[in-house]
């Protein structure tokens, strides 16, 4: 890891910031973002043909496509940073769950529509400020990806916010379901924003944005943030929930059954 950290620090002029030897280097960082997007895309794609209305099938597929598009750009870049000849498919299809760097939030099962919207709200509220910072960072590739993905994430945030408000302030049943979803998913937001001063972008610096957006939406939706000290994490270091391995089994099954084939 140290070797390619040095390599990439040389290879890309105008680095985001100096990369310390033992910290989160750029490959790990980009891989984390890529895996967030890839796993989120896979979960959203599972909704296809199951949506509560036809327009929502289209909207969720759109968001899945955006996440998948970002994942492909980020994986490709991660592969280049690593310099070991792995392309987007090698990284997506031939790593095991312990090598994935996504946050736990995105791998959680879809649950009902309220749970999916809670996950999307928190993910988008994290990705919007993240991609915004990336868009003006010194790494040209990341800046390009950030600029593109930021606009898409802003739409995801709009979409999730609208639904969280509708469900929170809709019927008694939808309110109950939406509050239960927020309660269930909220603890996983801590991992998104856990401080990592060695990372190219310290996630803790996104907290102000995240909090103001999320608290605004939840208040309008007549929802509350649960009080809990539980802060599950481990995704960024490859220690996941039990769910990820199943998700990857499905994602990778066909590709792995035909080693060396092209599609």
């Amino acid at each position: 890891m140290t070797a390619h950290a040095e390599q990439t620090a040389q290879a890309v002029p105008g680095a985001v910031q100096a990369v310390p030897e033992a910290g989160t280097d750029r490959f790990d960082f980009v891989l984390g973002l890529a895996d967030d997007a890839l796993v989120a895309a896979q979960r959203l794609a599972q909704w296809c043909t199951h949506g509560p209305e036809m327009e929502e099938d289209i909207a969720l597929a759109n968001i899945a496509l955006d996440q998948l598009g970002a994942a492909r750009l980020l994986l490709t870049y991660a592969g280049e940073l690593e310099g070991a000849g792995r392309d987007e498919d090698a990284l997506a299809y031939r790593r095991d769950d312990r090598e994935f760097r996504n946050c736990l939030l995105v791998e959680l099962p879809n649950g009902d529509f309220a749970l999916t919207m809670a996950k999307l709200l928190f993910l988008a509220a994290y990705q919007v400020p993240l991609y915004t910072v990336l868009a003006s960072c010194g790494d040209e590739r990341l800046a390009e990806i950030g600029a593109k993905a930021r606009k898409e994430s802003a739409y995801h945030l709009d979409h999730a916010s609208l639904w969280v408000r509708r469900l929170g302030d809709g019927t008694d049943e939808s309110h109950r379901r939406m509050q239960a979803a927020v309660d269930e998913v909220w603890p996983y937001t801590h991992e998104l924003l856990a401080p990592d001063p060695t990372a190219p972008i310290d996630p803790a610096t996104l907290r102000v944005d995240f909090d103001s957006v999320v608290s605004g939406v939840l208040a309008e939706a007549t929802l509350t943030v649960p009080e809990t000290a539980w802060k599950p994490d481990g995704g960024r270091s490859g220690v996941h929930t039990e769910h990820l391995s199943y998700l990857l089994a499905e994602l990778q099954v066909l590709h792995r059954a035909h080693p060396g084939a092209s599609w």
Partner: protein
Amino acid sequence: MRDLLLAGNLLHPLEIDVLSCNTWGMYGNDFPADDTAGGLLGEVEAAEMALRAAAERGRHGSAGADPAAYFAEVVAADQKVEPRDWMPEAYRATLIRQIAQHAHSEIIGMQPEGNWITRAPSLKRKAILLAKVQDEAGHGLYLYAAAETLGVSRDELVDLLLAGRQKYSSIFNYPTLSWADMGTIGWLVDGAAIVNQVPLCRCSYGPYARAMIRICKEESFHQRQGYEILHTLAHGTPAQREMAQDSVNRWWYPSLAMFGPPDTDSTHSAQSMAWKIKRFSNDELRQRFVDMCVGQAEVLGLTLPDPALRWNDERGAYDFTQPDYAELMRVIKGAGPCNRQRMEHRRRAHREGAWVRAAAAAYAAKQANKKEPAKQKEKVA
């Protein structure tokens, strides 16, 4: 890409969307623009030009005292019947039935391909397939909007589908058992859909004709991506090749059956022809499809599973084995391998989404109430 332009342009004689096909978007600019559909895309464009020309010519006269005669005149002059025009009730009912069945087919048709999105073998293929299935949802909504111009609501039509009182294309009652089926569905099923639908671009009912022009353009990209999947498989490893051939073997006859029963048994055809809703018979379209596929199968290096398939010089067309129409009738009546599964899937999504739709309606009502006092004040003032 995000803005769904629905009913608006269906009503306007001159507006047809520029191509916004998502499948095409996923390909990007490296997508070759050649026409796998054997010149059919050219026919779509010709139909679009004819439609514009007719709109610019304008229709002569007006309905006046004899609306039935005027309707006949409009149809005879290859002008378009528009939603507010008088039309025979049977014409309206036929169109509603046909457009609804078409819309339902797009929506149910998302399931067999949706089945492979999460397992697509490369990220590029996953993106293309997801975009394609999303396109089909868009087609469904677009067609429901076209049906609504005839005075029926989408909710009513969806209820008829869920109650089993309206049909969708029987082809979607077959299972997708391998990745190669994504290729074959694109090549054969979207291909047959195009052959069926290209003549509808000249349908006498304006909103349907305009919807078909847009949809046919997208379907030709769908067909192309399917063909490309099969081409890759057929030129891949022995296992991939076998997967491709097995898939073509399973889908060939059901695809031929998509054109419906033979002309001798077709119940709706003659009147629909007279009204210019339909322009070619089932058998004519089926022949056209076979003639189109033979050469393409050769390029793919795959075999169409019909030992009797051979060129007939006299007819200037291929002789081929007819699909099993008894099987078609069984599948139409509900006994296909996946009828129950497809319907239960649709019903479950509808049922499980009910609380979400109720919440959206309740929220909208609350928002409207908040605005209401302001409106009332305006009225007083």
